[in-house]
């Protein structure tokens, strides 16, 4: 049987297979090359980089950019702030989202459709930026660490993912048995639902953590204090607003100063993106799973 099919491999199929392979290689290169270029540019002589002589391999290797970063306090303070926002923010997200998702997953809970509408409505209609800003301002939360931790404490989309998971993946029999034994919702939630929701928990932790890690909008709008600035804001200052590096450059003149500033940029990109890229291969399957769970709703 197999042999028969193998023999039928026609010329057109060979061409097709070859074209697909060629296209996949092209896409692979297009995706990977910019990332690879940043890596080699961060350790090459930046004059050669600017002249376009660094293309595929690093040339005249030096670590000037990384040295500058180690000495720069802004980046480390940004890192520390981001770490606080990611850890505290994600913890708060989970503590708020999971119990609410559980309550909304109870089929016997009569108000659940109305409460769901209460959440879903905010996905489609909002007060807008200015009224939100005014609200936060009247709570005296502008330029505090608190607002950057609690902002978007619950994301409605993630809430739906969690609710769908609990509803579909945790057998209803368990609930009935637990209720018969006189188990309360609290006990059932903590002893049965949470341990059985590892998959969706990890998906949500990742979604929320990446959101906090990459967030710069909230910090841009709701915070103006330098000491609260997360990493992304610091990156924007260094990478996009071209603010000179605190140490070094002061006495360096002209072209050399600019080119070393460029090398710092490449290094900053690496240092700020590396943590996520290191974690990524280990969590990739959870991200894929998250997309699947979310798609059930659509």
């Amino acid at each position: 049987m197999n042999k028969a099919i193998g023999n039928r491999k026609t010329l057109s199929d060979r061409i097709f297979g070859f074209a697909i392979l060629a296209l996949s290689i092209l896409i692979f290169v297009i995706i990977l090359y910019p990332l690879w270029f940043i890596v080699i540019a961060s350790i090459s002589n930046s004059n050669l980089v600017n002249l376009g002589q660094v293309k595929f391999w690093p040339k005249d290797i030096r670590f000037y950019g990384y040295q500058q970063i180690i000495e720069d306090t802004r980046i480390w303070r940004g890192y520390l702030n981001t770490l606080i926002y990611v850890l505290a923010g994600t913890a708060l997200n989970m503590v708020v989202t999971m119990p609410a998702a559980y309550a909304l997953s109870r089929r016997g809970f009569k108000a659940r459709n109305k409460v769901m509408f209460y959440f879903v409505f905010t996905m489609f209609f909002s007060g807008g930026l200015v009224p939100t800003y005014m609200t936060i301002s009247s709570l005296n939360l502008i330029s505090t660490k608190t607002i950057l931790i609690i902002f978007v404490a619950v994301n409605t989309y993630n809430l739906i993912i969690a609710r769908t998971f609990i509803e579909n993946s945790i057998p209803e029999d368990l609930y009935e048995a637990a209720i018969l034994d006189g188990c309360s919702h609290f006990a059932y939630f903590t002893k049965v639902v949470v341990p059985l929701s590892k998959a969706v928990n990890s998906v949500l932790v990742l979604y929320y953590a990446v959101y906090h890690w990459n967030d710069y909008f909230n910090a841009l709008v709701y915070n103006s204090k330098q000491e609260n600035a997360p990493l992304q804001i610091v990156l924007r200052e260094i990478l996009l607003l071209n603010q000179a590096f605190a140490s070094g450059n002061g006495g360096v003149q002209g072209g050399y100063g600019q080119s070393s500033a460029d090398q710092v940029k490449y290094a900053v990109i690496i240092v700020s993106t590396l943590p996520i890229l290191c974690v990524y291969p280990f969590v990739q399957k959870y991200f894929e799973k998250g997309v699947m769970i979310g798609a059930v709703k659509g």
Partner: protein
Amino acid sequence: MGSKNQTATANKSLGFRTKKYFEHNWQLWLMLLPAMLYILVFCYVPMYGIQLAFREYSFQTGITGGKWVGLKYFRQYFESPMFFSTLKNTFVISFWSIVVGFPAPIILAMIINQLRNKRWKKTVQTTVYIPYFISTVVMVSMINVMFANGSGVVGNFLKALHLVAADTNILGKESAFVPLYVLTGVWQAMGWNSIIYIAALSSVDTQLYDACKIDGANRWQTMLHIDFPAIVPTIMILLIMNMGNILNVGFDKVYLMQNSLNLGISQVISTYVYSVGVKSSQFSFGAAVGLFNTVINFFFLVVTNWISRRSTGTGLM
């Protein structure tokens, strides 16, 4: 549910049952409380604050104390030259984002699905997801470096291929803004958005492929007549969701890509709201522009939802 309650409480009194019901619901409400409270304060209170758009804002009286001015700020926006230009820019950017950005992950998923070598397939998949995790700030600075006039590698490569005129300053040219925004967006999100299609493709019944082979179809025909129809429902749902967001251009990337040379094409409604409403403290005017944007989006969503209900029987609401 009914039968469950019957078996569970068949020989218990009505009073006990009622008591038990409230006991349970009280706990559910408590579990909902933090989330509902958050939504109340940060979503519904700002909605109440929308009235700011119809009032004169003053620092003494706060949001609700100013005097009513009716549609003054809306008129101010509609009559300003910024109205047409922000609306047009927003529309053009989202239009091209959908036209180019929507088919890309579908094509990618079909290519990945056709790869026969397992290890290479896995490698390609892992690689194309990576750019999604790059933050917008880093993404935009990568664009600035790669397309910089003179030293940008990718810019120079395109110039060498004569895809771009040799004397173009890609980052400073208005006509280059939209292609740059859209294509780098494809680079970043294509892989991530393909996940859902790859999943849909992997659930195609393998008997169909065998039947195709026996009928003498080649791989290209199989892809066209088996694979593609299999993902059409997924495509439709995602297309509707995308259409509903047509005037919802993300603030982050546009704002960061703005510079004095491309502002004519890169000032969209959301960045305009930020620059007039928050940065220059014209709170009432900013609220009015923001409300206009929200209402248009809401309208688009309701219309696309209605069309999808009529044509496919499924909707979001």
